[in-house]
């Protein structure tokens, strides 16, 4: 008889009329790796918050280590061995690594005073558990995303932990980091710790989980074993509809070069980057964390002044002194983090769509032409199938996938020649993801030059005509997806194998 760490029965929870959870049952056994999957907004995070005592359920029971809790508090959950690593890691960006590591532990011990020497000992112990090397006195806000996550994981391990819940831990990680994370997870499992792993990536569910649960619209769809799952079924469980997943037909010929980058350098980040993007092609760019991908994108978007090199747009040499220069030259950028860089969450969908082209609807006196604005909004809501009843609703009422479409709409509305997407489907569910891929193909066919920066290997292979691999700020390889397997691409990225640089 395997011990059950936590079991929830008939859990329901509503927010202002929205039923986020509707009669969910879930049981997690000691030492198992359990995947929780579901589309954006299906209620995964809410379920986790209920299990960890952050939210009180409206209905249902929680049984933790055999004890029934009517009103589970965060501290009780922690004492019961439940640790959560949230999507945003729940760290304190203003505090040091040491403090971030030790605070939770000391709190759960009910300590009232701070002993800094103990803090350091605890912190050292924590990072040693996963062999994580970091400056304990660094401000966590200054760390990379992966390091922040490792801080959160090492923090979770400090307790007498029975269950670690990870809410979409891989969204912000590169492949190599994901692999490292999986090694950590397997190590934890071997110590008898249960893992509840939230993801909506099929590959991950297959690779790591022993059992999985899928929820849709707050309701449990299925709990089963991965062996019984294939891609079609997975997509069907998640979305309730059929989704295809085949490599897109790439065009035989492409158009004129729209973007030529030659010898581009940025101190400490990029060195001698040279490539050409043609009209009508989707160019993939990938690399490890710190390879300079984001710097490259932001440099092309005018954010960082370059140290050396030339950029030509449609044959004209340009100087990108700022974002507005880039936009004026027909360059658009869909950022990595749509919540902080892409969207004004409390503003309306309409506002977010038109923000980059407001000046187009403005009369010389500065008045907004509301009819033209309205028709533009209507057009993009229809074209990109943004699921909303009213475009005047705040954008934060949309699901992640639809939010990403809004960002896309904003940039397409500026009618760019070059569209750069940094992680176009990060945190986007399987249905929306495939929609976004289709949109990108359509745009390319329409003559746009598209750069997709991603570390989602299937995504790259599926959508790109060519893929550039960056390493330490240099282009180390160019890959033809038609002749490359997932494994080969992954090995190239991690540097396990090398290839000649094609230009």
């Amino acid at each position: 008889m395997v011990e059950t760490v936590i079991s929830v029965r008939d859990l329901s929870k509503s927010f202002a009329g929205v039923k986020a959870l509707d009669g969910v049952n879930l049981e997690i056994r000691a030492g198992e790796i359990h995947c929780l999957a579901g589309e954006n907004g299906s209620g995964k995070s809410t379920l986790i918050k209920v299990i960890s005592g952050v939210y009180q359920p409206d209905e249902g029971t929680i049984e933790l280590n055999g004890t029934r809790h009517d009103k589970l508090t965060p501290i009780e959950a922690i004492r019961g061995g439940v640790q959560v690593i949230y999507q945003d890691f729940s760290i304190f960006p203003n505090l040091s690594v040491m403090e971030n590591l030790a605070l939770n532990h000391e709190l759960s011990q009910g300590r009232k005073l701070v002993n800094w020497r103990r803090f350091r000992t605890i912190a050292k112990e924590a990072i040693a558990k996963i062999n994580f090397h970091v400056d304990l006195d660094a401000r966590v806000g200054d760390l990379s995303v992966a390091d922040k996550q490792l801080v959160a994981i090492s923090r979770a391990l400090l307790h007498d932990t029975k269950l670690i819940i990870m809410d979409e831990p891989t969204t912000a990680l590169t492949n190599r980091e994901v692999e490292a994370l999986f090694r950590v997870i397997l190590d934890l499992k071997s110590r008898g710790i249960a893992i509840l792993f939230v993801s909506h990536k099929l590959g991950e569910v297959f690779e790591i989980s022993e059992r999985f649960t899928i929820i849709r619209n707050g309701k449990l769809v299925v709990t089963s074993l991965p062996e019984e799952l294939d891609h079609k079924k997975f997509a069907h469980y998640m979305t309730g509809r059929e989704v295809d997943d085949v490599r897109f037909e790439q065009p035989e010929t492409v158009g004129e070069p729209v973007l030529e980058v030659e010898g581009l350098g940025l101190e400490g980040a990029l060195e001698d980057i040279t490539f050409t993007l043609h009209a009508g092609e989707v160019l993939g760019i990938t690399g490890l964390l710190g390879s300079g991908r984001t710097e490259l994108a932001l440099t092309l978007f005018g954010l960082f002044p370059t140290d050396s090199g030339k950029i030509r747009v449609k044959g004209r040499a340009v100087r990108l002194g700022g974002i507005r220069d880039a936009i004026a030259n027909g360059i658009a950028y869909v950022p990595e983090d749509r919540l902080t860089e892409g969207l004004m969450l409390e503003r309306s969908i309409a506002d977010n769509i038109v923000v980059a082209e407001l000046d187009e609807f403005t009369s010389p006196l500065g008045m907004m032409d509301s009819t033209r604005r309205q028709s533009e909004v209507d057009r993009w809501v229809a074209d990109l199938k943004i699921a909303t009843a009213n475009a005047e609703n705040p954008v934060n009422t949309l699901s992640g996938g639809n939010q990403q479409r809004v960002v896309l709409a904003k940039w397409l509305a500026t009618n760019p020649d070059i569209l750069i997407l940094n992680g176009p489907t990060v945190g986007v569910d399987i249905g929306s993801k495939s929609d976004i891929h289709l949109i990108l193909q359509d745009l390319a066919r329409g003559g746009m030059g598209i750069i997709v920066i991603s570390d989602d290997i299937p995504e790259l292979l599926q959508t790109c005509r060519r893929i550039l691999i960056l390493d330490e700020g240099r282009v180390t390889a160019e890959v033809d997806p038609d002749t490359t397997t997932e494994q080969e691409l992954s090995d190239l990225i991690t540097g396990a194998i090398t290839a000649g640089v094609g230009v």
Partner: protein
Amino acid sequence: MESTTLLSRPLALARRDPYVARLFVILVTLVAFFLIVRTDNFLSFGTWQSMGVQFPEFGLMALGVMITMITGGIDLSVVGIANMTSIAAASIMLSMVPPDASGGQATVGILVAVAVSLVTGALAGAFNGFLVSVVKIPAILVTLGTLELFTGIAIIITAGKPLSGLPALYGQTFGARLFGVVPVPLLIFVVVAIAMGVVMHKMSFGSKLYMLGTNATAARFSGLHSARLLIQTYTISGVCAAIAGLVLLANYNSAKADYGVAYTLLTVLIVVLGGVDPNGGKGKLLGVVLAIVILQILSSGLNMFPAISNFYRPLIYGGVLLVVISISEGKGRFWKRLNTRKKTKEEVVVS
């Protein structure tokens, strides 16, 4: 017919924005209360006229504070700008219009003075905007510093003394009653408020401000020129303050470095009571105008009760503010919206 359309728009607005609706209810309640308790006084024409002359002074300043707060900033320097610019205007009138000047001379002098005051206000505001957006000093500190600075300049120019003896035409113009009814300061306020409404809700500039105030990083990533927008915003606030200064100049027939010092915090109180979020991105002109009217009616109403000392005024103002923000809204959506804001403010590292 006319009146239903006139009313239906604010009502529809109120329905969409429960906070504004709440202010509206409070206003109606107040009016009803004073009507019943002090019918004669409250219905008297003079009461309304006197209110119409009074509130434009701080109301105009509050409009400027409002627009800066929409961007997530604040403008504490409005009173300083108002006094500095009205002193500039007064100095010009005094030097250009000698006591025996002809009507034409006076008109020219006044027009030049008004123009100079508006330009000075704009420059002072632009200076605030520059410090906020380019030097990136927190707005609360910038405008506290410039409040001292502008007041300091006003004191240096005048050695602290009032500048009076303005051309009579100036006082006559601003003291006039349009159609014998509407005081000119009220008219000015209405015009500026309408202009502000147009700027905020009809021009793309206003739309950009809300975007900037909601998420400055995303606004920048969307190609908005945030530094320029902020400079323009503070410039508008400076111009509003300068207009308020011209009203002060007329109402007191003189300019001085320390008129209206109590208005600094009053304007902030009005703006937050009007439902503008100090973190930026949220708030409506209608709410702020309602807040201005509510506070003015409260204040004038209070003066009708000799037994109640003026010292209760802050208590009542503060009480109204706390009550308005404490009334739960059933579903509590307002608070949640404010609540979710904070999280997006954290730094993003390009890693």
